[in-house]
């Protein structure tokens, strides 16, 4: 098997297992109270980490680029209670505009 197909197979299987693990194994079980409180906080912690890495990480470096301007525009739109589409468009347009200028 070529390296490429080996990767396709191995990464595919690993991903299926990673995604299915929790939903299959935790099926029909109530989590203990402390565990439930911790799992509830997974969403905000992971979302914040995704915001941080997708806006400021480039490979393994921290960078301040046009995505940061896009994020600032998105934050302003969120504060103005704009709908999701407007938030996403504001970010993309700011980043694209700044890139076109520089």
């Amino acid at each position, binding site marked *: 098997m070529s390296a490429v197909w080996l990767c396709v197979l191995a990464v595919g299987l690993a*991903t299926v297992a990673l995604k299915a693990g929790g939903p*299959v194994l935790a099926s029909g079980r109530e989590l203990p109270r402390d565990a439930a409180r911790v799992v509830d906080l997974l969403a905000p912690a992971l979302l*914040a980490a995704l915001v*941080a890495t997708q806006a400021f990480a480039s490979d393994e470096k921290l960078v301040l680029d046009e995505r940061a301007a896009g994020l600032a525009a998105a934050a302003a739109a969120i504060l103005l209670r704009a709908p999701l589409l407007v938030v996403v468009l504001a*970010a993309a*347009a700011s980043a694209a505009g700044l890139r076109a200028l520089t």
Partner: protein
Amino acid sequence: MAEGTYRDGIRVMLPLIPAIVAFGASFGVLATAAGVDALAAVVMSATTFAGSAQFAVVSVLGAGGTAAAAIGAAVLLNARYAPMALAASGAFRGGPLRRLLEAQLLVDESWALSNREGGFDRKVLIGAGAVLYLAWNAGTVLGVLAGDSLADPATLGLDAAFPALFLALLAPLLRRGSVTVAAAVLGALIALALTPVTPAGVPVIAATAACLVGLAS
């Protein structure tokens, strides 16, 4: 909040379709440029269905890395799906096989969009995940067919769309109270602090440690 429908999931996903198709296409372009054959790229989008891990595989292989290095990087990047799927596990229904299959539609965006007040919404996750799956795979096919004649998504600012989306989905959660805010701030700080010193993928997984502040409350 009322229970969502498949249609809700499809509707919330629509604004992101251009960005998803563009990134699917750039995966197709990069994969062919890195010497990955077109069929393998298309099969990978259909079976792995996780952008960052797929980009990692083609970039490691394209740079002359071994299959083991490529697989290691991709699995590390996708390891975040274990805690994300665990957080959403209460939403899934039915037997193990059904849960296994439905959980495959969980990716960052469908997971985040289905996170409603009081838990995850299965129908929204599946609706959004299905739209994303179609857009991602259509984009990949477009990319391997069109080659590098396509525009770079960054020129269109589409790379800024994703952090904006996640911020928009995080914002309403922050009104839940100070413990939630603390978990989010700590999560972001852990991810930023580890970015320069660990392989990609580790910062986001390590950020899950921030949810331990729940034990202190």
